[in-house]
């Protein structure tokens, strides 16, 4: 017997007491959405909760997106901005920074040297102040949002789901997914939360309202 068969037969042996009439799919996935944790104004809640995790959150009219990105870059003094494929040109502001396209793919060294990255998102979660990326067009492959020290995210108000279950249902499990709640952090020293370890230390969330 190979190990696969050894483990599977050990599992079956251990479960010999389970009646044959009981089926694996007798228990459907639970509905995690019974309670409304979000309330009426999901956009306000998202902004509040994300800010509690030390993300910088601004709410602007959709037409002011590029200006808000410009202010975020000016605030940190970024000199270079990574721009993923598929991001609308109108969203990328002019300024004293060089633009780095990921075509051909940037090396990890180039990404590590870059100051900032600008992306859209796939969905957001109001209750937890989370943004979810599926790394499709406008979001770039995963390394793009990991190595530069500032991540600027454009969040359309209609992408904000009230809670975790609703957001997960909007995502495509076949794609790589990253859920981001605030800048990187650790509680490993005396269980005291400290922001800024390996991931981007600055997370800017620009919420775009009105189409």
């Amino acid at each position, binding site marked *: 017997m190979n190990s696969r068969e050894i483990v599977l037969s050990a599992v*079956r042996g251990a479960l010999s007491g389970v009646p044959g009439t009981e089926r694996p799919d007798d228990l459907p996935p639970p509905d995690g959405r019974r309670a409304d944790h979000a309330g009426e104004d999901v956009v306000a809640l998202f902004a509040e909760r994300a800010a509690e995790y030390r993300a910088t959150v601004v709410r602007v009219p959709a037409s002011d997106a590029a200006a808000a990105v410009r202010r975020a870059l000016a605030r940190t003094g970024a000199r270079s901005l990574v721009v993923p494929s598929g991001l609308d040109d109108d969203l990328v502001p002019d300024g004293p920074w060089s633009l780095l396209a990921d075509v051909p793919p940037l090396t990890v060294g180039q990404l590590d040297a870059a100051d900032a990255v600008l992306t859209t998102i796939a969905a957001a979660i109001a209750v937890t102040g989370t943004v979810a990326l599926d790394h499709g067009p406008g979001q770039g492959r*995963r390394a793009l949002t990991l190595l530069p020290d500032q991540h600027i995210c454009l969040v359309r108000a209609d992408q904000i789901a009230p*809670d975790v279950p609703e957001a997960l249902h909007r995502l495509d499990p076949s794609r790589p997914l990253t859920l981001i709640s605030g800048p990187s*952090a650790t509680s490993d020293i005396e*269980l005291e939360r400290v922001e800024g370890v390996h991931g981007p230390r600055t997370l800017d969330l620009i919420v775009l309202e009105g189409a």
Partner: protein
Amino acid sequence: MSGADNVVWLGTPAFPEAARTALADTRLRANLRRATGTIRDKRLAATAELEDWEELREKAAAVKRHTLRHLDHHLLRLEKAVTAAGGVVHWAADAAEANRIVTALVQQTGEDEVVKVKSMATQEIGLNEALADAGIRAYETDLAELIVQLGGDRPSHILVPAIHRGRSEIREIFRREMGEWGSPAPEALTDDPRDLAEAARLHLREKFLRAKVAVSGANFAAADTGTVVVVESEGNGRMCLTLPQTLITVMGIEKVLPSFSDLDVFLQLLPRSSTGERMNPYTSLWTGVTEGDGPQNFHLILLDNGRTATLADEVGRQALSCIRCSACLNVCPVYERTGGHAYGSVYPGPIGAVLTPQLVGVENAASLPFASTLCGACYDACPVKINIPEVLVHLRAEAVEAKRRDRLLPTAEALTMKAAGAVLSSPRRLAAAQRLAALGGRLVGRGGRIGALPGPFARWSGTRDTPAPPQESLRAWWRRTRTRRREDSRTTAGREG
């Protein structure tokens, strides 16, 4: 099916002895008190925010219990989905086999170093040691794991393996050891946690950038889609899961969930139970291999290592529902005082006390089921409602039974219990024993309490005060007063009649 690994640390003393040493360490106790106190308050605040918290716990418990009852079915579904998405699935019956598979996979890449995401499964199988034997260096990248690795130490907590270290100790370890492993710590390193985190960032950065192979564990894996989930805070997980070309994930077979939708519940429960946050900073989910993004070779190793033996026990099986949040450690009065090392296992605290003896056989960790006061705080905190006290009592019976099997002569405990059985089953013998106890209690008791006693009573009485038996038992009192009352009432009745 378990071999030589880290589930129990060979050569470490049994819990009572180790606990005595730990209790004498005042710095350790101060570190633990501060850390567990902080996290307890945070967890309560985070869980109180969701009015359906209890319902979420019920749902999660139901999913886990039902999944375990059909584990073979879901493992096969997971294997199929991961394979269809471009991953390769391996099965390992024990630690040695899992280590062999990982070592061979690393060797095939031609690399001699790997970066690691914090993972209990790889701790459990002693992977770092096995890789070192094959000339492969494994770099821990989680901050707490890094502190443990640089300090030549052992983990003492599931979530925060360096919880026993205070900030000034960590600064000393960084100053002393970082240079040995790569870039040294900055000259002016302070003991501010911010500074220490920054030092870890600088130290590990070059390792992330050059790494070709990463090893991770898994928090969950969805059988329907083949999606694997790693929940983390620092971004070291994302680095390992994204930058290298080859990713090797070692996962206990009990981590499988039937469907992606089950994450609805578990991604609400885990962060709030573990770090007391609404959501951890980063959660990575991946399904096999994605062209042009992340590792192009993905291996998933499904690990048994004692889990099927645990599964066979219908009471103890529930321990496999554990999602490694560590809430039970943080609320445990025993853990808070002894710390994790006293348990002599990578799985310390209440969950360790029920999981470790089952993974390695109760006779190999016989003191652990007794490392608890049975207060039940762990059960109240557990997000998947593992009835830890119930399993502890069940394992205590097994430990006693195992001890009996191994001995020709009965133990003092067994003799005492047998004598107690004889006394308690006979009213006459009980009354005689109670009269004797009342007399003995008056002789040795001080202020209504019996303290430490010599001889055969020393082991019991050395750690607890026993109330001195009353001068008269309830039965004796009843007989005395009832007889008198009956006489009284007869007199009254006679008067009225």
